[in-house]
């Protein structure tokens, strides 16, 4: 059956997580799903990753928070969110009723708090937990370490281990780009018990207003996203997949099916569409549609394409 073949050709898995297709949304770019429902049927996606949820509501960073950059944008939102209680009460019911995978992104200031949050999210409707270990727009002083989790293997391992111990859901560790050895961070997450990695978060950057002689963003620096950062993400995924057996979800600068194919061929088992949704709210849908057409034309499948470029590469990139 043609239709059966087509849906099978899109299917993929990220560790224990079965996805009907490899297109998810990136945290912080799709709200809690409901905001996007007027643009397209969001349940058609492989999964929805929520805006990062923290234990308590966060007001977010001072303004200005965003700046346009060549082929991208800088943001310093600061994890503004409704907090765990608000999420469970007001946001999860909508997501839980959707016939797609729901991944809840969480961030905490200590490993223990990551565990608490993951434990609280062992509820109906939550299919997986993504640990945001790499947001560049918050301070990391609360836990006493003053270092981003994803900048230190031991902190990454501890946060993942705490979440792992508290939850039976698949745990995805989201890493950032500004590290000397991404494989060392990936290995730390694996030791902590992660089921998968998500690579990458935004790239730290700054824009200066030369007339005012100060940074455009109130907080100074922010996270760069958009097409400008895609080659950075593709390389990181390529390196990780060459070094580790853990499945990787690729994210960074994906706005077309062609972009998604680069990540899949680098070794990603699934992809997330992020900033492109700000430019075109149907972006994730369009990427999925484009992938579907590509697979049909090529008579191929997502499973067959994963890591296709790896097999040809001799070096580690």
């Amino acid at each position: 059956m043609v239709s059966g073949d087509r849906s099978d050709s899109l299917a993929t898995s990220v560790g224990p997580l079965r996805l009907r297709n490899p297109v998810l949304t990136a945290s912080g770019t799709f709200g809690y799903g409901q905001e996007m429902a007027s643009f397209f049927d969001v349940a058609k996606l492989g999964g929805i990753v929520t805006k990062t949820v923290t234990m308590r509501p966060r007001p977010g960073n001072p303004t200005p928070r965003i700046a346009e950059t060549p082929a991208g944008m800088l943001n310093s939102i600061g994890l503004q969110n409704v907090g765990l209680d608000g999420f469970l009460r007001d946001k999860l019911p909508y997501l839980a009723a959707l016939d797609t995978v729901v991944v809840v992104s969480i961030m905490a200031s200590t490993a223990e708090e990551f565990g608490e949050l993951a434990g609280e999210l062992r509820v109906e409707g939550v299919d997986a937990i993504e640990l945001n270990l790499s947001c560049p727009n918050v301070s990391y002083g609360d836990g006493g370490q003053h270092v981003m989790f994803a900048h230190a293997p031991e902190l990454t391992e501890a946060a993942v281990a705490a979440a792992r111990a508290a939850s039976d859901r698949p745990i995805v560790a989201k890493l950032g780009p500004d590290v000397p050895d991404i494989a060392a961070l990936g290995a730390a997450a694996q030791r902590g018990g992660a089921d998968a990695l998500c690579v990458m978060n935004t790239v730290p950057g700054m824009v200066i207003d030369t007339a005012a002689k100060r940074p455009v963003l109130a907080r100074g620096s922010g996270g760069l996203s958009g097409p400008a950062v895609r080659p950075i993400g593709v390389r990181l995924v390529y390196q990780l997949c060459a070094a580790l057996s853990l499945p990787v979800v690729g994210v960074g600068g994906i706005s077309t099916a062609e972009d998604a194919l680069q990540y899949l061929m680098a070794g990603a088992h699934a992809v997330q569409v992020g900033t492109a949704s700000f430019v075109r709210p149907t972006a994730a849908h369009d990427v999925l549609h484009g992938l579907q057409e590509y697979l049909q034309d090529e008579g191929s499948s997502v499973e067959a394409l994963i890591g296709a470029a790896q097999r040809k590469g001799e070096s580690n990139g």
Partner: protein
Amino acid sequence: MSARLQECTVAANREVAPGHALVTLESGIGAAAEPGQFVQVSLDGVAGAFLPRPFSFHRAADDQFQLLLRSVGPGTAAIVATRPGERLTVLGPLGRGFELQRAIASGGSLTLVGGGVGVPPLHHVADFVRAGGAGSEVTGAKIDALVGAATAELLLAVDDLRAIDVDVRVSTDDGSAGHHGLVTELLHDELGAAGGADGRGRRPGCVLACGPHPMLRAVAKICRHSDVPCQVAMEEPMACGYGVCLGCAIPAAAAPDRYLLLCKDGPVFDAEQVAW
């Protein structure tokens, strides 16, 4: 009313002031638009631009709408340069507009205060009220407009406003037309006169304003002192336009660490909601 993403054909594009274009787009997006609401115009493929650009409606009808914009960078330049027959991808209508029922009900007359390229949403207000959009009982409401610009040739929509029975006073920074100074001085004068001993005896039911942030801050202050309700249409760097990116936040008056989203809670706010 949920927003739609639509490819629209440019029906007309006319230069109305140096660097300013009045662009007419064929689309049903404007059919349900309220004054103060806005659209996001996609700039996919325009070199030097990435994010869409938000614009208030200048006029909106069932089958077409107009944007009046100024070329300030590669993105706006590309839109200003469009020709009839070309297509633009537009998302809208977005945001919350002016609360006109409340504005008119509270006193019977409106005073519009527009600075520079902030005039379009106020023109939309006047056009909408005169067309009966705010209710037939207020179609003939008294509307004053105070329009300011750097120079006479940059005063926008003055003739259009007068043509729909709006009483317009103008100011220019260089004195080339009307009051030599700021448009907020005209407002101060108007509200001062209304409230003073020699008052002309008419006090606007509400002030509706749009323009640069310092101008809006001054308008809000003048209105507070004169105890006149004031609604402001604001602008901030914006990415998505529909409440997901959380980029276009502005501090709320309620608490120093509370933010309002310009694209969803606004772009029109009661002046008392905003931490100026």
